[in-house]
């Protein structure tokens, strides 16, 4: 039993990864059953997706503006400011869009998923569902998982669009770069499959890993206020690490 076993960070970590993977299998098995709760899935897309729009749009705009400023400065050293649109769009589509969206998502939606499921666990709502013969995996966890899968790529696209807008604002409206140069350089070097679609795949994967971690932490939390607090922190920490690690692996494969 857990009380008897000597705790060790290494074995605990491996056990967590194992339990998390098993949890993923259980979620996937519950997905067909969760289709009955379609309305709940829609509600969760609203909560994790639409409610995250404000932060995603604001951050997207500012990240784009910062990229515009910084890259304009760097490119002007080489006399290559014409490539500003290209460099901004490529860095957004391939890296910053999916990654920053995932990090913001973990902070905004991941924590709320963990806290919500954790409190449902702490207040016996999960047990009550089981007693009412409702599978909490199909009713509570799977809809949030699906919602994360759907919402994350859409949020990343909105983030990218606002980022491009921000870079355009800084580069063209402020620093006086030619509008035609900005767009034509971008359109001639950005590839829809290699850059845009690969970025979307990345954010689908990040959506899966972030919601998996958030629901797992919430579902397995100790049913106390301290337990929920720890679980919420762990969600942000683990989601961020997992996102960046997965980003490296996916970049290596998708390049």
């Amino acid at each position, binding site marked *: 039993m857990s009380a008897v076993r000597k705790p060790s960070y290494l074995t605990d970590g491996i056990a967590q990864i194992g339990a998390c993977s098993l949890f993923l299998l259980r979620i996937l098995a519950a997905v067909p059953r969760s289709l009955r709760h379609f309305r709940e899935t829609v509600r969760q897309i609203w909560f994790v997706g639409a409610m995250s729009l404000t932060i995603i749009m604001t951050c997207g705009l500012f990240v784009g503006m910062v990229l515009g400023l910084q890259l304009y400065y760097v490119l002007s050293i080489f006399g290559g400011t014409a490539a500003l649109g290209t460099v901004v769009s490529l860095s957004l589509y391939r890296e910053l869009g999916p990654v920053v969206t995932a990090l913001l998502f973990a902070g905004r939606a991941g924590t709320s998923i963990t806290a919500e499921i954790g409190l449902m666990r702490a207040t016996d709502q999960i047990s009550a569902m089981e*007693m*009412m013969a409702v599978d909490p995996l199909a009713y509570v966890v799977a809809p949030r998982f699906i919602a994360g899968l759907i919402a994350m790529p859409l949020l990343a696209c909105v983030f990218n669009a606002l980022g491009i807008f921000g870079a355009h604002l800084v580069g063209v409206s402020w620093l006086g770069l030619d509008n035609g140069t900005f767009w034509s350089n971008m359109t001639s070097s950005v590839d829809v499959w290699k850059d845009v679609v690969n970025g979307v795949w990345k954010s689908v994967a990040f959506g899966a890993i972030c919601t998996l971690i958030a629901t797992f932490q919430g579902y397995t939390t100790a049913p106390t206020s301290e337990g929920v607090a720890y679980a919420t922190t762990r969600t942000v920490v683990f989601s961020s690490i997992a996102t960046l690690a997965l980003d490296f692996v996916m970049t290596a494969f998708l390049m």
Partner: protein
Amino acid sequence: MNEEQRAPIADDVLIRVRGLSTVLNGKTIFDKVDLDIPRGKITAVMGPSGTGKTTLMRHITGQLAPDAGEIFVDGQNVVRLDRAQLFALREKVGYLFQNSALLTDFSVFENVAFPLRQHLSLPEVVLRNLVLTKLQAVGLRGAADLMPHELSGGMMRRVALARAIVRDPMLIIYDEPFVGLDPIALNQILKLIRTLNETLGITSILVAHELAAISRVADSIFLIAGGKIAAHGKPAELERGETPWTKQFFSGEADGPVPFQYPAPDYAAQLGLTGARA
């Protein structure tokens, strides 16, 4: 239903537990416990805190598998049921949680409607009438549109009760229904338990330690202590009981078979007194 899982049980026994043994976190909770819960009666399960009353309920509803033993509920061995069969059985059981466990995102009406929406696809009119009927039974028809956080503890428990009975179960388990209630709310719950049992003939299991309240409704009482059934009988019999367990429990003595002191190393040794002497 699998015929082999059916045991020859008299019709008047709804739940039959045989040889139940459970060890949780190294602590023996149950040691070969046998008990029968009769159909259509109110049975109270009492015992000092931490003796596993709630654990027993979790065994009966299949939320927790025992280490050994068999539990027959309505002829089915809960221990051997798979998830689908267990869910089918649970649809016939209402469970009232200690902290009500209402779904906080839903209104009172939707909370009560939840089991119906999940398992049956009733026309909205029928569902509405059914839910309102149950809310009327617990006296909260007027609170249908409130959210759970707007209710008092007693009202929340009554909503949870309406939710537990909305599918007309054969068995209701009340887990600590009286904790934290004022005398008025307590009497309301008590009245509801009795009414449900009398009018609908629902078998009820009452987990509690409020002796006065229990003796007013329960048909029989099981006293669980030290992993065993310490006593069993009608409320009046147990109050006159002569065993050390019943004596301590029913007269509420601070010390007895249930020790006041949590098991601890020798007092003097821990204070360093014996060490100083040696």
